[in-house]
């Protein structure tokens, strides 16, 4: 009985330890040659401010298309574009917020 309780606790704990960003983004992007940081910097260079970047990301997840992608044509030709996101709105927003916090430039320059 004790063993069962410990196992359930470990499973529940480990599932909550992964945040929305890790659950939904990292697994898919692990296989790509461009890291999420590199993609973030491309978004930042294209969209500029925090709100703009977040809106751009949100829009791309919902309506992915080559002509609005920040990636190069060679990359898109080789890997194509991602399918329509299945993540719900709340989860997507959380993931994007975490993504911004992890890679933002503001406050990190010296």
């Amino acid at each position, binding site marked *: 009985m004790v063993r069962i309780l410990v196992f359930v606790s470990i499973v529940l704990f480990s599932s909550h330890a992964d945040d929305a960003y890790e659950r939904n983004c990292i697994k898919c992007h692990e296989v790509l040659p461009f890291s999420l940081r590199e993609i973030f*910097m491309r978004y*930042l*260079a294209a969209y*500029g401010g925090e709100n703009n970047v977040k809106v751009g990301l949100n829009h791309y997840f919902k309506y992915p298309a080559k002509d609005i992608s920040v990636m190069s044509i060679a990359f898109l030709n080789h890997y194509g574009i991602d399918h329509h996101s299945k993540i719900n709105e709340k989860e997507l927003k959380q993931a994007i917020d975490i993504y911004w916090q992890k890679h933002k*430039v*503001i406050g990190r320059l010296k």
Partner: protein
Amino acid sequence: MLVSKSKGTNSLLASEKKSLYRFLTLYVLMMMSIIVLIALFYYQNQEKMMFLSKRDMLSDYAYEQIKKLKILHNTFPADNAYPRDSRFKSGIYDLEYVKIFSLLESEDIDFTKDMYRTSDNKIHFVKTLFEYYLGAKYLFLEIPDDGDWREETWENIFIFGGLAIVFFTIIGFYIANLFLSPMRSSLLLLDRFIKDTTHELNTPLSTILANIEMIDTSSIGEDNQKKINRINIAAKTVSQLYQDLTYITLEQDIHKNDEKVETKALIENRIEYFDSLAKSKDITFVLDLKKSYIHINRHKWTRVIDNIISNAIKYNNRKGVIYITLKKNTLTISDTGIGIELTKIPFVFDRYIRFNHSEGGFGIGLNIVKKIIEEYDMKIEIKSKPNEGTQVVIRW
């Protein structure tokens, strides 16, 4: 209302001065506005010239800094050291105007201009990035403003502005004099006319007064006595006018012959002189006279007293009262007459100014009073209320 006249008053009429002041105020305001506008335009132009001289250099700096930002963008976060340059300070802001990083010393940030001077004397050059390296849309470069151009500009503004003010002020006075010359010509013409006619009044007037004095009134009837009294009053009125005109045209430049005058006796003498005139209007005198001496030309002092008493009779109501108080250094003459409106009091000393045309005269009496008062460094105050009366106070 209190009006004080002193020696500081110049020879211009108050109305003349008022016109002159109005014109000069308007002229000076317009002139200053134009000079300020030109100075402003010149200052802005000099600032633009200064910006222009630094723009190419700052554009080159910006180009170099953007290249460094691009490199940092690609190496961030492994390298997070913001590129510094000893020639300038810089800062980057995103398109939402949020500061990403800044080394700028001035907090005066303006996203609407591409180059400007801050309130703390720095020059800011703003470069917009088309690709937002590190998220930056605006790159601000800052260099100190040495202020040399500003010093030179202010120097030029003060020198040339000052010269322009002096030049235009001289022109202004010239134009003002041109405007006032017709008014002066009219006054000179009137002066000349009075001077010419005054000469002709003396002999007949003296004859009338001498003969009236010689008439034996006891031998004539009461009716004729009244008529002779009226002739006497009329002759004295004309005589008074004659004295004023003579003074203003001939005697005002005679300064000396000052003597110690006992004013109490003089006033009593003048009241006796004006007695018949006062009685014709049933006016009574209330006197409170103390012994008082003054060092003055007796004739001029008589003109002052005569004119004030004459006015107090002329502008008094029938059955009115004239109060005369003499103290050591103060003479006060009050009447219970028609008074003077508040706005007109400052002009009572102007020559040919008369506010009430029901009585005779040229409007020169108080002008003579003022001139004598100023000549002897005395002070005169006029307090008046319409329909209540006027009080004239002379202090010496």
